[in-house]
């Protein structure tokens, strides 16, 4: 028995437009929610043009598609995820299926490599592929089980419906984050900080997963059904609370030497969407906790991906730097009821940069007025004690053109970091 995807009407219109527009194969992502009970596809977005591609975008570039998926995945609040890939092409069905299979595995591998939360037993591991023939408009839908490297395509149903998410519920909360992790004694590279912080984030993620989740003030039994979606077209918001207990430290030495420490302190707004087909409390808890972990991990990752200000080794003297994690800004997805996507705004960015990114990544036309930046406030940062007053201005000029091409930043930053690391090795006298 194959899976059955219920798809928002707007997706049909979007795919149709793509069919009539472009020559050459068009790929894109299918976004929605896949649970044991139901599968929904609520949005799609085409893969952005790759200006640097060798053949001008005529062939399908697996890495490019996967990188797009990774970036998009960061922009999806809880409950929404990249479910699969579509391709619009006239090619032979068999070839296309092979391509789709490769894409879906590659996308899933890249996205899951960044995840800090542990997959649950009841997670759906099927990914969906859609092949649309632009001439005949025929669509073929298949699924692959990405947990099984040898899996074969299984047929699946693809049904359009209007108002799929009009009565979906929104679970949200505002959560304090307070992490402190020691840095090892011989602190030569920025890389060390990255690893320490990532390890600590994993521990913190487990703490969140263990936390007690209250829905509307109560601890509900796992299988109890939430009163979501009982009234059509009524927005439903559920407030959630999370109670945590610290990890029990088992290290024998209570006082340890260190080369400093990294802390992340503040609060985040977390949000998850639940389908309206008698969702269970267990699902709400799972999706919200995953969003909490993802939003913090994503932001830390983004901050670490930024080119670091180069500080010279200053032995003995205390150096302290503060950076703001970017704040979360939401953008409603038109005509899909309560759903929204999100992006992260650094303190030196304006809302126009956000709308540009929504257009590039998700092919969404959003105006600045549509954006909701009220959930989080950018905090004040004190002046860093290291001496580099002249540098910030130059750096901003350097960074702006990169920011517009978001994927470009990710790729280029990796190169920059390597260069930086190389130069540090040369300059420092460790």
């Amino acid at each position, binding site marked *: 028995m194959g899976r059955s995807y219920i798809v928002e009407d707007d997706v049909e219109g979007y795919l149709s437009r793509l069919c009539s527009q472009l020559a050459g194969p068009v790929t894109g992502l299918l976004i929605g929610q896949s649970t044991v009970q139901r599968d929904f596809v609520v949005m799609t977005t085409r893969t952005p043009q790759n200006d640097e591609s060798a053949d001008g975008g005529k062939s399908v570039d697996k890495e490019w598609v996967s990188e797009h998926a990774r970036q998009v995945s960061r922009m999806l609040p809880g409950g929404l995820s990249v479910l699969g890939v579509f391709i619009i092409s006239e090619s032979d069905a068999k070839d296309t299926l092979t391509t789709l299979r490769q894409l879906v595995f590659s996308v899933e591998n890249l996205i899951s490599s960044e995840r800090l939360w542990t997959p649950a037993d009841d997670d759906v591991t099927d990914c969906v592929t859609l092949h649309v023939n632009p001439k005949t408009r025929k669509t073929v839908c298949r699924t692959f089980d990405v947990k099984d490297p040898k899996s074969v395509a299984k047929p699946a149903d693809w049904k359009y419906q209007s108002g799929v998410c009009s009565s979906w519920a929104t679970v949200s909360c*505002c*959560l*304090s984050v307070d992490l*402190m992790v020691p840095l090892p*004694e011989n*602190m030569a590279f920025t890389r060390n*900080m990255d690893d320490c912080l990532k390890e600590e984030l994993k521990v913190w993620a487990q703490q*969140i997963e263990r936390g*007690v989740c*209250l829905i509307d*003030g*109560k*601890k509900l039994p796992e299988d109890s059904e939430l009163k979501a979606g009982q009234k059509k077209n009524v927005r439903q918001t559920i407030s*959630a*609370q*999370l*109670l*945590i*207990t*610290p*990890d*029990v*430290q088992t*290290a024998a*030495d*209570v*006082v*340890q*030497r*260190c*080369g*400093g*420490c*990294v*802390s*992340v*302190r*503040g*609060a*985040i*707004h977390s949000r998850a969407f639940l389908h309206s087909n008698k969702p269970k409390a267990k699902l709400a808890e799972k999706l919200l906790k995953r969003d909490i972990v993802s939003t*913090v991990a994503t*932001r830390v990752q983004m901050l670490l991906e930024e080119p670091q200000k180069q500080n010279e080794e*200053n032995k*003995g003297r*205390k*150096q*302290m*730097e*503060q*950076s*703001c*994690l*970017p704040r979360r800004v939401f953008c409603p997805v038109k005509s899909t009821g309560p759903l929204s996507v999100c992006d992260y705004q650094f303190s030196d960015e304006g809302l126009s940069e956000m709308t540009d990114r929504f257009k590039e990544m998700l092919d969404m036309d959003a105006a600045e007025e549509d954006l909701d930046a009220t*959930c*989080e*406030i*950018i*905090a004040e*940062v004190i002046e860093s004690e290291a001496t580099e007053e002249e540098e910030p201005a130059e750096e901003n000029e350097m960074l702006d053109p990169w920011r517009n091409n978001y994927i470009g930043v990710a790729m280029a930053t990796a190169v920059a970091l390597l260069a930086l690391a190389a130069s540090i090795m040369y300059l420092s006298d460790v």
Partner: protein
Amino acid sequence: MVLADSESAVILRLRGPLDLKCQLDCIDEVPMQKAISRTFEALRLQVKSESCVLAVCNSPVLIWPNKSVFEEITPDAPFEDIFQFIQTDDQETSGKRSTKKKNRKGVSTSVINLSLMMEATKPGPASAPILTRTVQKSHLLCATLPMDCAVWSSWSDTIKDGCERLMKALTRQLFEMEKVTLQCMKGTTLRVPEPLHFLLPEPNGLVTVVFPRGEPDKELEAQRRELHGQFELPDNRPFFRRANAYHFPNEPYKDGYLRNPHTVLTHPTLDNGKVYLVQGIYSYHHYMQDRMDDNGWGCAYRSLQTICSWFQQQGYVERGVPSHKEIQQALVEVGDKQASFVGSRQWIGSIEVQAVLNHLLGVTSKIMFVSQGSELASKGRELANHFMTEGTPVMIGGGVLAHTILGVAWSETTGEIRYLILDPHYTGAEDLQVITEKGWCGWKGPDFWDQTAYYNLCLPQRPRVI
């Protein structure tokens, strides 16, 4: 330090970990102490904050004590009401008023366990996080404080009052932990402060003391002496060794042995008679335990094990209960037996029991001899005195049997006597009902003894230490 009310029937116990994390720029004594004190102060503020939550274990009841939010119950309800929410594994009590309230023999104490948690969520909007990176050679203090507070409460106390007392106890415990941490600090070596509860004789009741974890009992004698003075306790018996820690009624013993099966018995009432019992806790050792088939020969060994268990659980010794082989090895070491004795199934008597207690535990014992079983009836006074001053279990061997005497009921005027016997010949499972109903632990009359055989009794003496 809470007074025990003899009518109060419930202990409120709050447990939960608290993170003690502190960056130490300088490890000189004074700055380090200041940094640690500041961290403790921050923790005290944290438990007084509105994010502090008490969760009643195994129930949906949640309490925010610092903002008076009570989930599932009302603050003015009596504590009894909480019991209907608690799900126990015992099917009979689920959902109904618990039978724990009924008195079995003696006061049956119930425990309500609560967990300390912090609410991580708060009203928005959120102030986006800041990442701070400090590069400096320093030290980091990172430990988990095992908070554990217990207060007496009566059934009719309101939930609100009970929670207030628990929160006060929590703050007090943080102060005590700070004191112990700073006192036991040696350079950069710190011991995590650990609370232990002790049930002291009236009027003190249940008392909580913070000790540095990992510090052996023998290093803490000065602290114990001070505590004995503070609570006006005699200075010749231990009350504050780790083994003396109170065992909460709802916690099963991990080793599976029964403790003090005699407490469920109804003691005999004799004309002008009084009951003199063993003081403290022992484990019931008998045939076939520990996968050792000693049926027919091991009774004195088992009685000895029961006695050893008493010395361990009262805190006089740290070593565990010895096995048959270890007992035999000890007798070889003192020269009482040949090497071939080890691994054999030979019986031992009171003299051997005395020798082993001395060699393995450093405990001296008195030997009492009666030439005929009938004479035991006249030993009422001596046995009564033994239980009053030493309170240790007595091993008695004679005829072909060995038993353990846990107490006597004796009338000074009529001379009537009964003996509370723990029988090591039992071969069954640790079933309290079977053991007490079938008399494996029970009161016996003078005719229990072989009237013509001679008997030796080993009366272990309690060491005069704290």
